[in-house]
């Protein structure tokens, strides 16, 4: 691993971290879309996505098909990088720093250390300070968010329950993080030490959040966002951007729309992608969100998150 120095609690004045959160800043107020091939990436860019996440199977397919889910093939990532002008993200398994090194070498703009893939380490997440490429990580609560930030994450997203098209857990995680942040802001200095213990997070970061009333990095939302109204909901709850995974290019749970050969299915994907982009920017204008909802053709069938057995939840991966 490369030589690096950091104080373990996020050195927010460092050039590297400022550049990382700087890119996250540019991605605010937009939609990052999961794409599995060049054609989907082009549709995403054409619809106004701010970034695409290159992966071989979207969460809904991983869930249905099972097996070990890994980093996408570099060939696919390279093809997508050359097909679009917007930033390209890709996922590495939790703790799999060698996959992350590969993604950095490929020139990926953001690495998602993601619970959607099968974890590679049951104890340690990746030391993200060791990379020049910025990382985004999932979190269900403030403590988890701050542990990832301490490790060097430049962006946090809610985990939600990926691949379901059910927004309920994304809502739960966003509300929890926002509530815990608010609670910190009214604590006295002496109480913050205990808050660090309760949240299992570094004291310096707890203090920073208590003073600022927000995370020290952008806070996005992911996990089950499937409709324009879902996107508007998450933005109103405090998300600064949204990730949409299976919601755009899937028809049934495990079947993608055939955007390459079927013009009708292509049109359906385009309609969903455009509508979610519009609703994310105009999240505070119900009339525009209504028009966006109306413009959508079809929707992913979805899977109620409450119906998933505990051992099949993806959000419980990572700690």
């Amino acid at each position, binding site marked *: 691993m490369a030589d690096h120095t950091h104080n373990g609690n996020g050195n927010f004045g460092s*050039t590297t971290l*400022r*550049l990382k959160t*700087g*890119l996250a*800043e*540019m*991605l*605010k*107020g*937009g939609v990052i879309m999961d794409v599995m091939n060049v054609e989907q990436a082009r549709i995403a*860019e054409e*619809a*106004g*996505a*701010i*970034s695409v996440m290159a992966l071989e199977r979207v969460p809904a397919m991983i869930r249905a098909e099972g097996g070990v889910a890994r980093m996408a093939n570099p060939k696919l990532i390279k093809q997508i*990088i050359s097909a679009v*002008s*917007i*930033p390209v993200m890709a996922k590495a398994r939790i703790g799999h720093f060698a996959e992350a090194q590969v993604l*950095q070498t490929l*020139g*990926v*703009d*953001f690495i998602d250390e993601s619970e959607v893939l099968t974890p590679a380490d049951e104890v340690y997440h990746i030391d993200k300070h060791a990379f*020049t*490429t*910025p990382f985004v990580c999932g979190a269900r609560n403030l403590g988890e968010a701050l542990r990832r930030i301490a490790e060097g994450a430049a962006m946090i997203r809610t985990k939600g329950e990926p691949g379901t098209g059910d927004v309920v857990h994304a809502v739960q995680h966003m509300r929890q993080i926002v509530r815990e942040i608010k609670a910190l802001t009214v604590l006295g200095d002496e109480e913050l030490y205990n808050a660090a213990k309760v949240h299992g997070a570094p004291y310096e970061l707890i203090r920073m959040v208590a003073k600022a009333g927000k995370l020290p990095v952008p806070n996005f939302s992911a996990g089950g966002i499937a409709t324009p109204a879902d996107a508007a909901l998450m933005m109103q709850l405090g998300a600064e951007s949204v990730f949409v995974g299976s919601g755009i290019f899937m028809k049934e749970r495990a079947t993608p729309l055939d955007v390459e050969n079927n013009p009708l299915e292509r049109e359906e994907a385009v309609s969903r992608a*455009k509508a979610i*982009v*519009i609703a994310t*920017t*105009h999240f505070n*204008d119900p009339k525009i969100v209504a028009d966006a909802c109306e413009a959508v053709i079809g929707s992913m069938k979805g899977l109620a998150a409450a119906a998933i057995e505990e051992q099949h939840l993806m959000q419980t991966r990572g700690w």
Partner: protein
Amino acid sequence: MTTSLTIGVLALQGAYEAHAQSLRLLGATPKLIRTPEDLIGPDGKSTVDGLIMPGGESTTMLKFLERNNFFEILKSFVTKTPTFGTCAGAILLANEVEHPAQKSLAALDITVERNAYGRQIDSTILKSETTLPGGPLEMVFIRAPRITRTGPKVETLATRDGFPVLIRSGHLLAATFHPELSDDTRIHKLFLDLVRESKS
């Protein structure tokens, strides 16, 4: 007593909140602009004294501008009202955009090459002299574009490797870096001065 300036910040996507914060620090009032109605009031007059078009993804912003005649309204707005474009915003203002070619407001006589320095891994923070007083200026470049040509009326205020990174042309200001991500407020001050000049 001077009245506070109201500065629109195009908030379709991108670093609009960071710009709004820089403006507040300087005593100006930011107004987020998401629709043509936010920019032009029912009386047909501009609702703001100036406009900032932030960094972000210019392709995404263009998608929004293509709806509801926003593009034409903004195009006419920037011909007469002070406007500051940073990064993606500078791309939108340019006469000509390359790599890849795309539509733009063609208000500023420059040619811009998108993502000219490479990917995020090539993003960098530099410090160098400019024509502004106050010593070297910190410049945060993120997946930055490059200004490859400037017209005769365009004044270059700062450069990187010989290419302009901060330019002024009449009531228009453009930067390929991100002053909203630095503590140095000189660039936003410069823009507010330009706005005041145009009002007097």
